[in-house]
């Protein structure tokens, strides 16, 4: 393609080529059938044009079944084949590899707020190291948004009240558009910025320019104490200790939880979040529904920190060492210092999307 007038966006993630290939496959099929139909129509239009008034087309009876079967079954098999290919690509695009580093994203009208695993935060910008698989765990403070980076060929709706995730492994350093793809109100088209893919060294350097703060798990742990969650859930102490008033959170994440009422669910991010803001919705079997709600007392980003902390207490995903969180739990909150931008602010060195 000529550079000034691209037909395909830059392919800057590990899955981009696969998506493009799938598209190319469909394009070839589409071009074939469209051309076939167009050529046939033109040829018939010219060749069988009416030559005299009152002329009639062929009234011969024809057997249609063989042709009908041909042009039903061939497209059917093609479509089913493409369906399988499409599903395959879909799972490649959506299933995060185990080594993906988790970032936390909060969408709100009309900005993206990102928390790096190191605790650094940024707004309407995302810095990631090249070659590293990263997973965005995302939620929204208000309406539905959609996290979309065309160069990575990934998109995922960001819903209020639950977590969704998107992952990518950038393969090229550079600057790529980050869009909100789900219409979210007045400044929908301005809700976005750039993803900066940096080399590993540049990323470290970039992280160092911001004030270092506690990791997201550590701020979660601090919050856990400040909100006195630990008085009932006791996770700071010995993982084996038996809590009296509430279930232990050690090893909770990813585990099957039996609920009062007989149902069993998997403890995922959304469940942990719901248990904080609406604790009585799903009470663990054998415990009283005595936990008060924390709705309105914690922001969506603090919720993310709490969820990240509970995740770090072990479970299906690799956990942060318990000692680490315990040690940092006592540190004063540093969240304000680590902010890298105010809401609405466009970070230095970045052009607004719309000039």
């Amino acid at each position, binding site marked *: 393609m000529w550079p000034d007038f691209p*037909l*395909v*966006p830059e392919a800057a993630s590990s899955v981009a080529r696969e*998506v493009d290939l*799938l598209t190319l496959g*469909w394009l070839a099929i*589409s071009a074939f059938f*469209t051309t076939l*139909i*167009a050529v*046939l*129509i033109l040829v018939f239009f010219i060749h*069988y044009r*009416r030559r005299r*008034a*009152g*002329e*009639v*087309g*062929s*009234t*011969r009876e024809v057997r*249609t079944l063989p*042709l*009908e079967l041909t*042009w039903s079954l061939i*497209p*059917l098999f093609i479509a089913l084949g493409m*369906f399988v290919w*499409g599903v*395959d*690509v*879909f799972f*490649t*695009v959506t299933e995060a590899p185990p080594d993906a580093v988790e970032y936390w994203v909060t969408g709100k*009208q009309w900005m993206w707020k990102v928390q790096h695993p190191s605790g650094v935060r940024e707004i309407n910008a995302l810095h990631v190291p090249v070659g590293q698989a990263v997973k965005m765990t995302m939620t929204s403070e*208000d*309406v*539905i948004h959609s996290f*979309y980076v*065309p160069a990575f060929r990934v*998109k*995922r*709706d960001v*819903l*209020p*009240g*639950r977590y969704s995730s998107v992952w990518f492994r950038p393969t090229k350093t550079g600057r790529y558009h980050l*869009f*909100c*793809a*789900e*219409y*979210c109100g*007045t400044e*929908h*088209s*301005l809700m976005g910025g750039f993803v900066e893919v940096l080399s590993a060294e540049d990323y470290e350097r970039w992280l160092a320019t911001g004030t270092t703060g506690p990791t997201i798990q550590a701020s979660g742990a601090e919050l856990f104490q400040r909100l006195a969650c630990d008085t009932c859930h006791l996770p700071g102490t010995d993982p084996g200790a038996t809590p009296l008033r509430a279930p232990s959170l050690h090893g909770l994440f990813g585990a099957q939880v039996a609920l009062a009422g007989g149902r069993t669910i998997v403890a995922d991010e959304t469940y942990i979040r719901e248990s904080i803001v609406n604790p009585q919705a799903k009470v663990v079997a054998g415990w009283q529904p005595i936990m008060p709600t924390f709705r309105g007392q914690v922001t969506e980003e603090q919720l993310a920190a709490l969820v990240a902390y509970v995740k770090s207490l072990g479970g299906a995903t690799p956990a942060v060492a318990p000692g680490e969180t315990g040690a940092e739990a006592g540190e004063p909150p540093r969240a304000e210092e680590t902010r890298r931008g105010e809401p609405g602010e466009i970070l230095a060195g970045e052009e607004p*999307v*719309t000039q």
Partner: protein
Amino acid sequence: MTIATAAPETHATPEVKSYLGSAGWDLKSWLLTRDHKRIAILYVISITLFFFLGALGALLVRLELLTPAGDMVQADTYNRLFTLHGVIMVFFFLIPSIPATLGNFLVPIMIGAKDLAFPRINLASWYLYNIAGVLVLWAILMGGVDTGWTFYTPFSTTYSNSYVTLTIVAVFINGFSSIFTGLNFIVTIHRMRAPGLTWFRLPLFIWAHYATSLIIVLGTPVVAITLALVAVERSLGIGIFDPALGGDPVLFQHLFWFYSHPAVYIMILPSMGVISELVAAFARKRVFGYHFVAFASIAIAVLGFLVWGHHMFVSGQSAYAGMVFSVLSMLVAIPSAVKVFNWTATLYQGSISRETPMLYALGFIGLFTIGGMTGVMLATMGIDVHVHDTYFVVAHFHYIMVGGAIMGYLGGLHYWWPKMTGRLYPSFWARISAILVFVGFNLTFFPQFVLGYLGMPRRYWAYPPEFQVLNVLSTAGATILGIGYLLPFTYLFWSLKYGQRASDNPWGATGLEWETTSPPPTENFLTPPVVTKDAYDYRDFDETAERRPHLAREEEEYA
């Protein structure tokens, strides 16, 4: 099909009064009419007004998108403009377009009935449409609505500061107008066919309208109640859809798309019915694979209800549900493909005329093929993740709705105009306009496929500068398309007074509607027709020499 008993030269008998004048020309006789043909004319007037209002919205949207910066109107105004365009075009133009106008006019005539089964309900449908139309205009004049035509929650229930409730009331009422039409068609087609007119002698236009009516009747109530819940949630603060109150926004999407995906087939199926008629009439040949085309309509209607989740691959729906929806979407593409192949095969060994309706029909087949192919691309999960909610989707559904539905509507209007009004239009200008529409349409929407794949999201008021060239092309195309739409409006209007008088069967086509006068009398036929033949049977065509005077146009054309 033919009438065994009717005299072929009925138009010559001067005492036959057409439906247009038989009850007088005064306004009251029109506003209280129960004649399906007059109601069709009333509907043509109403939907034309809304079409141009929706087109004005599109024009302003395209003008704003000439430059990357949002510089012509405010972001908020832009959002209200594209919502206006979407709501008006979807609910007030595309859904009623063919059924309420051409369908209303032709369904009873094509089956040899005197009227629809429930004429009063038919008139009520038109009144409901207009009441809904007035409400939506009121909402627009008060300041409009900014949710997009999809009304996604919780934006529509909690966050939008525009006239959402009023618009929803309008769409709700309009839904009943649509249901009344569908219900009337189903009953009429079942119960009022002329003697001898068996199901497999029905014109494919009737099959298409039957399938459309099924969708209207089964789907519309669901979107009505869903939008009603949105309005109630918005006014009373209950929490069915807003997660902040315990609701579930994905549930809204399920309920919304349960109707709104099949609604696409409400728009395209009648158009397909028109194309079947046009292809048969202007190739003077029976539609190839009649039974398959007929069943394809029903298959599309039924399968169309099983695929709504392909709008939700990235919405948070389960991947497994996504797979089911994806594979079913592949299945629904097959009957559409069957139709395209059959129309093409009909041309083979036909006697193909180059009259305006045929130009629209052939344009339709090409554009619908592109629209359909990109549709299955979107139903392919791996691609949809990237292009979902981008201009690729915008381009795709405009190929279906404008390249498909509107081309079919215009083609049908040009085909049956002599029957409806008794007048011919200037065919030179009509051909020019058909070509303008085709060229303008492609120039408008083809660049949008590229834009979408490049990653430009839909509903964007401002966009990165690298997308400008394609947007300028698109706006340029829209201008041509606009002229292409204004032309028919002008010459068709002109023809009402100055157009040459049409004979009963100016195209030399088959079908009961061509056996009666142009325009038809109030009860459609002077003698109740009896059908003895299949549809599109041209075997006796040459023998009926008395038809020749009807073909004066054609004699001129092929002299």
